[in-house]
């Protein structure tokens, strides 16, 4: 009843080609952004910002980047953690080595260097595919772990190999309260989210999808595999790199290579798979699932225990958390192999007919 595009006639090319052609979608997106920027700050406390919302925003951004590569272009990558690390460390280096470097430029520089590294490690994708490519991108992970641990230059010759940043500010706006950090990350996410959404429906996005669906056929109809694959690697690692820089700068404040370990790569891949491959929205669902659910379980299980009069030990909580989490992943993949985003689009379909499905 509320969600149907009947009667929305497009009279110009511009109207026909906008990002969200359906009026309701447009309003919904505006409402979500407005809620995130204005409503959320009125509702939540500091813990929520720091422990849930900020990690969620940053990892959504990273998942978005990975989704472009894995979901849209079909190139399985296990090197996302490494690209995050490159983003974080190179942003750090740009930030501390160049005097008076603006924060945003430093973060984008992190993304830029991640792009370069992504391109280098994307080259094998021209020859190897599927699982073999995943293994090849693992090399990126190990190489970056090694480089940031061993090469003193990257960490500004810090004895412990851990780096830290503080006093973040953008054009005189000091970012130190959780709310400011949240808004800062939100700004990045909105900009990159809209850019990505636009990109995947452009010519280049369609090339990626053609390559994903069948690369031989794509090549036959005139899509250059090298260009398509490498551009997917470049765009993806740029976004992932910026997310990594935000993770280090805004969320952790001080980090070491372990913050971007192989676990992080897997986590990002799971986000994409659970959220929905080839869906921008799916990146957000996946990130929410992976970030929020463990924390939720971790807090709810002891509370549930006390409710029924059982004192659950910390270790048991942690183990149960893993078990439930793992079981839920399997359950979701069986029930909805196309990810949470598919549920979302089914919901949208049903809404079109509601309340008269027949």
């Amino acid at each position, binding site marked *: 009843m509320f969600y149907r595009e009947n009667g929305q006639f497009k009279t110009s090319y511009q109207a026909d080609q906008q990002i969200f052609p359906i009026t309701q979608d447009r309003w919904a997106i505006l409402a979500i952004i407005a809620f995130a920027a204005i409503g959320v700050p009125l509702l939540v406390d500091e813990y929520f910002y720091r422990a849930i919302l900020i990690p969620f925003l940053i990892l959504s951004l990273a998942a978005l980047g990975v989704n472009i590569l894995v979901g849209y272009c079909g190139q399985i990558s296990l090197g996302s953690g490494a690209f995050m690390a490159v983003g974080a460390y190179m942003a750090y280096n740009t930030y501390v080595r160049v005097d008076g470097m603006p924060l945003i430029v430093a973060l984008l520089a992190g993304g830029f260097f991640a792009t370069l590294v992504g391109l280098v490690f994307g080259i094998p994708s021209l020859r190897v595919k599927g699982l073999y490519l995943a293994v090849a991108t693992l090399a990126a992970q190990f190489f970056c772990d090694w480089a940031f641990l061993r090469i003193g230059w990257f960490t500004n010759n810090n004895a412990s190999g851990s780096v830290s940043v503080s006093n973040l500010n953008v054009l005189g706006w000091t970012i*130190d309260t959780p709310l400011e950090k949240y808004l800062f990350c939100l700004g990045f996410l909105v900009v990159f989210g809209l850019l990505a959404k636009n990109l995947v429906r452009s010519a280049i996005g369609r090339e990626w999808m053609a390559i994903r669906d069948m690369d031989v056929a794509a090549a036959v109809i005139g899509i250059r595999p090298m260009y398509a694959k490498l551009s997917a690697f470049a765009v993806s690692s740029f976004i992932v790199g910026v997310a990594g820089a935000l993770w280090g700068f805004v969320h952790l404040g001080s980090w*070491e290579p372990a913050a971007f370990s192989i676990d992080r790569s897997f986590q990002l891949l799971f986000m994409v798979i659970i959220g929905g491959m080839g869906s921008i929205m799916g990146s957000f669902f996946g990130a929410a699932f992976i970030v929020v659910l463990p924390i939720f379980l971790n807090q*709810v299980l002891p509370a549930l225990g006390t409710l029924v009069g059982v004192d659950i030990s910390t270790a048991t909580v942690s183990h149960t958390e893993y078990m439930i989490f793992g079981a839920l992943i399997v359950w979701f993949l069986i029930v909805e192999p196309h990810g949470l985003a598919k549920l979302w689009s089914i919901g949208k379909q049903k809404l079109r007919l509601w309340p008269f499905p027949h």
Partner: protein
Amino acid sequence: MKLRQLALAAAVAAAGLSSALLPTVATAQAKEQFFPVLVYRTGAYAPNGVPFANGYVDYLKLVNERGGINGVKISFEECETGYATDRGVECYERLKGKGATVFQPLSTGITFALTEKAPADKIPLITAGYGRSESQDGGVFKWNFPIAGTYWVAGDVIVQHIIKKEGGADKLKGKHIALVYHDSPFGKEAIPILQERAAMHGFKLSLLPVTHPGVEQKSTWLQIRRDRPDYVVNWGWGVMNSTLIKEAQATGYPRDKIYGVWWAGAEPDVKDIGEGAKGYNAITMQHGAEPNADFVKEILSKVHGKGQGTGPKDEVGQVLYVRGAMSAMLGVEGVRQAQERFGKGKVMTGEQVRWGLENLNLTQAKLDALGFKGVLRPISTSCQDHMGSAWARIHTWNGSKWEFSSDWYQADEMIIKPMVKTAADKYAAEKKLSRRTPADCQS
């Protein structure tokens, strides 16, 4: 139909869970001093993390049995970090909101991350024996307290012990010491002090990193077999330690030439190897395994005796258990000291506890009264010195238990002080901080 059932089930579950969550939020105690407990009872470091956590919690329970801190009872909550920095940060944020007054991160990575956050939240960090070595400089690190030892103290004392064994500093010339370290900020903390000492005495130092979690050491030991260093210093944690000793056994490297950091000198590291680890040494930041200490007996009778104990009874008094208890004691005594100034029998804020930790004066008489007789030496901190004591001993595994094998050593201030100052100044410059003024020290 199916979808509707699903939605219904989800809604019911959500409602149940949220109602379960509410009561815990509502029970914020007013008259209790809240101690957050960051632990890792799972993951690669659990074998060592569990006894530490048990000791920490048991000591807090003991304080309550003794009547609290001047009547203020302690409440506490555990949070599992799994040694991961991001989970540690989440725990910090979660427990901070519940009125936490002092944090003990129990991981160098988490310490680094919290060092950036604690000053803004006005919560002190105790990193007893670990964390950033330069944070003993209270002039720069106002909120960090590496009480009773840092990694630089540990590294320095190990070299001192080797000098003593060799029979003079000049004998070290041309010798070869290999540092096998956990490739993380924790492991790297050892490098500067050993390099400093190497330059001083002219011994060769080779650095052999081992990646997390440390089960893969074949190539490292191949190098050791080839170079045959005179001593091996083990800067490991968790499963890395037992692997290292097994590799040493396989390589035929004498175990009595290996010195571990205090994270690498506890029962879980050696007990499965038993005789094979005989002769293996480790540094202790003052205490070792203390089954006969007074406070251990008190915990056994007052906490375990009442069925309130955490973990197995026979582990009470082991090295890491004592470490946990001692760390808890430092936090509790910080609160007690703060009460001296800000009002006895009151709940202290983080800022007040910080003052207490900075003016900690644990004399031998006080320590004895707390049950730490023969376990610890006096600790007294000040505005400039957040460490308060630089004593250490070496203990050796005799095949079935840890025994002290050296006298007390004190870390060489002449070496460590300039290093601390340089590193702290570098940190301050990076952060654009200025040193605290004398007036700030009074506050």
